[in-house]
């Protein structure tokens, strides 16, 4: 195979980067896989169980780790890209630590950051005890204990959808797509951990876009009696007993609703990762109005950037679930293979 002479740099060792690395290595290309964290796997490492089937996330991380177990993949953790030079379709890339030499193609798979919940001050994250994010709740599932800061079992938990998504006030117009089903999944998990608790989801629209998502939503109602209230939470306060008081409109009844909860979980949305945005000037790439990288065509060019030889995979282009991220990464591998066969 002649492919070995070709070198691809992949930036980001999360789901997308690792899956693409595996595919391309098996095609015979030499891969430099750069990951800023200490280990590969990305955001899934933080998650406990995955929707829609609530499998343990480690099953998917195992798959990802196997993907990158290949002699042609040079995984560099704790490493970030430093300098880039682009000439005649070839990239010269160096990290802070070493010079990676010339790359025939580059794949950006820098993923997403979770929305910083402190920016929605009216929800009280970082101000009131027991206002947590969906990520904080996953950590609680990991530890096995869902407790308030007073180490008490919450009797009632509220879940707020669309925190930092579909919200012009924070500059995020887009829907983060996966938070609705995450809310449903976490509501079920709370009920599973604390069967006599009550869980209330405050939503604007329930977006069950993926296979088995609607079924999970149905299960949450039928088997777990999760409550759904259609109304955006406008503000949260703390009463004298230290319980959280939330205000919303019960829009389907047309009346304001006030409710006390022991714990409030904010479904934080997805934004293009800072680590990715830092590459913008280095590569001369652009973002769309949603802040994610702008792809060349919404239908058939969603791995292509405005720079020849530079490709995208995963959530740096749009919010995606893991299934779609893996598909997108595989598609990127196909695009790169085709590109390198011509160049």
């Amino acid at each position, binding site marked *: 195979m002649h492919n070995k002479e070709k070198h691809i740099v992949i930036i980001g060792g999360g789901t997308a980067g690792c899956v693409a690395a595996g595919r391309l290595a098996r095609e015979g290309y030499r891969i430099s896989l750069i990951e800023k964290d200490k280990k590969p796997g990305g955001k899934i490492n933080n998650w406990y169980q995955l929707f829609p089937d609530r499998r343990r996330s480690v099953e998917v991380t195992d798959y990802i780790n196997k993907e990158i177990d290949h002699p042609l993949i040079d995984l560099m953790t704790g490493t970030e890209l430093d300098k880039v030079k682009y000439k005649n379709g070839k990239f010269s890339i160096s990290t802070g630590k070493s010079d990676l030499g010339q790359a025939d193609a580059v794949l950006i798979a820098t993923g997403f950051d979770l929305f910083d919940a402190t920016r929605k001050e009216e929800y009280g994250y970082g101000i009131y005890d027991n206002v947590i994010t969906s990520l904080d709740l996953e950590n609680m599932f990991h530890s096995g204990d869902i407790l308030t800061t007073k180490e008490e079992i919450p009797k009632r938990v509220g879940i707020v959808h669309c925190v930092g998504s*579909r919200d*012009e006030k924070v500059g995020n117009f887009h829907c983060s797509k996966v938070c609705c089903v995450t809310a449903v999944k976490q509501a079920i998990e709370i009920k599973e951990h604390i069967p006599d608790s009550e869980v209330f989801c405050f939503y604007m629209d329930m977006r069950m876009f993926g296979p088995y998502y609607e079924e999970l939503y149905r299960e949450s109602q039928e088997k777990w009696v999760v409550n759904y209230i259609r*109304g955006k939470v*406008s503000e949260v306060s703390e009463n004298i007993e230290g319980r959280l008081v939330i205000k919303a*409109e*019960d829009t389907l009844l*047309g009346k*304001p*609703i006030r409710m006390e909860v022991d714990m409030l979980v904010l479904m934080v949305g997805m934004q293009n990762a800072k680590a990715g945005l830092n590459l913008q000037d280095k590569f001369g790439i652009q973002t769309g109005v949603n802040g994610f990288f702008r792809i060349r065509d919404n239908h058939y060019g969603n791995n292509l950037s405005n720079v020849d030889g530079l490709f995208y995979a995963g959530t740096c282009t749009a919010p995606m679930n893991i299934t779609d991220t893996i598909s997108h990464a595989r598609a990127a591998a196909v695009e790169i293979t085709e590109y390198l066969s011509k160049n």
Partner: protein
Amino acid sequence: MARNFGFAPIKGRVIDFDRNDKRVFEYVLEREPSFALCIGCGGCAATCSAANFTEFSLRKLNILIRRGENDEVRKIVDRCMLCGKCTLVCPRGVNTRNVVFLTREAFEEFDNYAI
């Protein structure tokens, strides 16, 4: 001469969309294009001082205006105290306060006509 038969025709509660007068809607939309952006989340109504005591919901008002249910709009639009909290909350950036203001203005404008 009208005679009292002891009963009167009941006005149906169906929204007669094709017959309803949309002039108020058009008046507001033309002057405040952000009006079109409402997704009915109810954030405005949740934070509304008037909604705590009266049957006022800006979310509902928005839809009533769109459907041309002007009798109901007229009944509730004066309940707003123009405090503007709803504008601060709205995730779609609707200038809600101006919507109320323009609705009132539209009624004044069209008051010589039967709406």
